[in-house]
């Protein structure tokens, strides 16, 4: 060992002998305090990030189109996808968005599960079953010459209630025992819209519906979704946020 190494080692030993730490219990307390602060900071940062995202999304979409209503679920907003609409069912037009549905895949055939016309414009719902990270899911595309096309996927164990562009129509799926879907729109005349879900094929464990709200309905109107069985008994009621995805009903 050379002289420098020896000098350093001797001093280090001297310092080590004199070192007076607060002790292991103090270190553990400090560690627990740090962990608590880290948890709090993480939660705060997450809350800020989520809040910022929601605000930013509202700014991008335009606040008039995404009014904030409380007491409703908003987990899976619909996506507007490119035209064409109402053309032939080409699988490539209904592919899962790889960015939003990474790892997901279609597990069933494309089907037109509901269709009709409103104000002289044709509309339809195209759906298929899919395997997503949430589990077995149903992807539904609402298409209309008037509103374009909106798409979303939702676990088939949940209901789905989605407002299409402009919130003039709500579409989604409900359990097969549902006989009527009722939308109650505050401030609209008439105040409620009743539709019967279209019976889907055996491919789907649910039925689909599309309910149009009166054209004069304010875009920030609160909307309640009620499901009734075939005898008119209420099964479920839930406040909806325009553009919301998951439904408890």
């Amino acid at each position, binding site marked *: 060992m*050379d002289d420098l190494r020896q*000098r350093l080692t001797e001093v280090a030993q001297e310092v080590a*002998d004199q*070192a007076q*730490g607060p002790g292991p219990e103090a*270190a*553990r307390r400090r*560690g627990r305090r740090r962990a608590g602060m880290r948890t709090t900071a993480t939660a705060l940062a997450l809350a800020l990030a989520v809040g910022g995202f929601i605000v930013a999304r509202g700014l991008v979409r335009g606040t008039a189109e995404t009014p904030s209503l409380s007491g409703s679920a908003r987990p899976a907003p619909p996506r507007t996808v490119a035209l064409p609409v109402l053309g032939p069912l080409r699988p490539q037009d209904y592919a899962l968005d790889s960015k939003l549905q990474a790892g997901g895949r279609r597990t069933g055939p494309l089907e037109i599960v509901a269709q009709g016309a409103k104000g002289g414009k044709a509309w339809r719902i195209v759906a298929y079953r899919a395997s997503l990270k949430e589990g077995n899911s149903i992807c539904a595309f609402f298409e209309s010459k008037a509103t374009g096309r909106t798409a979303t996927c939702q676990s088939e164990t949940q209901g789905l209630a989605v407002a299409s562009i402009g919130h003039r129509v709500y579409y989604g799926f409900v359990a097969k025992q549902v006989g009527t879907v009722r939308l109650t729109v505050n401030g609209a005349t008439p105040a409620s819209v009743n539709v019967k879900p279209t019976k889907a094929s055996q491919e789907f464990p649910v039925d689909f519906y599309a309910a149009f709200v009166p054209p004069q309905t304010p875009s920030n109107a609160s909307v309640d979704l009620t499901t009734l069985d075939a005898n008119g008994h209420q099964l479920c009621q839930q406040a909806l946020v325009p553009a919301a995805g998951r439904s408890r009903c």
Partner: protein
Amino acid sequence: MNRGGDFDEFYRATFGRLVGQLFFVTADLHEAEDVVQEAMARASSRWSQLENYDLPEDWVRRVAMNLAIDGLRRARRRAVAMIRLGPTSDVPPISADGVLVATALRQLPLRYRRAVVLHYLVGLPVQEVARELGIPVATVKTHLARGRRALATQLRLDPQEVQPKHG
């Protein structure tokens, strides 16, 4: 022995040694104690992982070293303001030789100090010092050579006695 007991044993076995090593980076006993205590606190909160490491002491030393460097950088930024108030009384309560070494270390750039500590005190080969510090082996050799030369001058060692023994 339970996990708390394991950590206590680890703490008692290594705290002093780590402070002795970190002293050569901070050049201040209290600062060295503080960074090692903070590193120990971090180790305690993840002890279930660290206790499976071959050398948990390496992890604690690395954390303490980073904390010391951060602290020194902050101190450097404060130095301009502090200089008007005169020197701080942070001379450690150690022997005359210890004071001499601490004073000599303060003259060394931080990057030299880290290399000197890891190589001469911890006993890491040059290659491992390079890996630990994330710099090329040649740079480590340069830091060691310049650090040695500066310390030899400061401590009035015979330069021939402190020739490199790189491994």
